């Protein structure tokens, strides 16, 4: 298993690229007209998890972006998925 230094050598530039892409995406959303929706709310709710001192940040972010209800629904309004639970309909 590689040590921290080896992993940084291997993957830091890629992780930096992804961090910048996320920052630019948030800037882009802010810069453009109109309302956001539940997806950007969910993303901003999940972002602090990145800085949390815990070993399972990926799992926690996936949980934060999941439908936490437990009962099957009667009927689906659509077939696809949005990436965040649509019952938090807040705008931003």
């Amino acid at each position: 298993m590689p040590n921290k230094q080896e992993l940084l050598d291997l993957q830091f530039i890629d992780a930096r690229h992804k961090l910048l892409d996320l920052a630019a995406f948030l800037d882009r959303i802010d810069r453009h007209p109109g309302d956001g929706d539940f997806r950007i709310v969910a993303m901003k709710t999940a972002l602090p998890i990145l800085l949390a001192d815990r070993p399972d940040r990926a799992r926690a972010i996936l949980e934060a972006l999941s439908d936490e209800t437990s009962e099957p629904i009667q009927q689906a309004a659509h077939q696809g998925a949005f990436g965040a639970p649509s019952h938090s309909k807040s705008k931003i």
Partner: protein
Amino acid sequence: MRYIEPHAHMVSRTTDDYEKLALAGCEVVCEPAFWAGFDRLSAQGFYDYFRQLTEYEPKRAARYGIRHFSWLCINPKEADDPVFAREVMALIPEFLKCQTVLGIGEIGLNKNTRNELAIFEEHVQLALDHDLPILIHTPHLEDKLKGTRLTLDSLANFSKLNRTKVIIDHVEEHTVSQVLDAGYWAGMTLYPHSKCSLDRAIDILEIHGPERLWMNSACDWGVSDPLAVPKCALQMKSRQHTAEAIERIIYQNPRDFLSQSPRFTV
């Protein structure tokens, strides 16, 4: 490097992709029945699709020295109309006689509806009636956690189910423990934008170990990569995994699970 691609939708791919798979060391492709990107309007459409899976694709793969096996079902996206779903399911027993059909899949849930759950359970019973392995799809994105929990709760009601003959696919960090802890196999799907990236799949492997775990490309008509498995193997190598560890996850594990069907040979 040799490997098994245990989940690929080759009906959506070109013949060039078979050549790429063969060049990368792929010896076997397994193809679960799935949603073609649009809803089919008749059971006859599925009859033709099942013929394509059992007659045409094995021949197309064989041209490149690849063995092709399939799994049959009506996928969850088209299973929300139970009358239609049962019409399609009535076709399946005829195709279960085909020598390249391994089991029932990929069944499961899409939007976690009551109808999807009912048809899922009827598929599980069909597999039990024919003593077949089961390949289970878990829902996309925000629906995956709930769908995985509903799937596990439902499976727990089948007292005669041999859990080692069931693989629950598309697990991610928030679902893999539940699946493995319950005694099922777990599949990690390597997608460019959703499901697991190469590195996240390797993280899951490092954290949970290789027992009852496989990885697949689930390549289809959408954003996907038919070479995701060998690319992940290469990434494992760069993260200092041994050749033996790589061989286990991309060849031995899928072989061990799939060999539970007497029709599967490599």
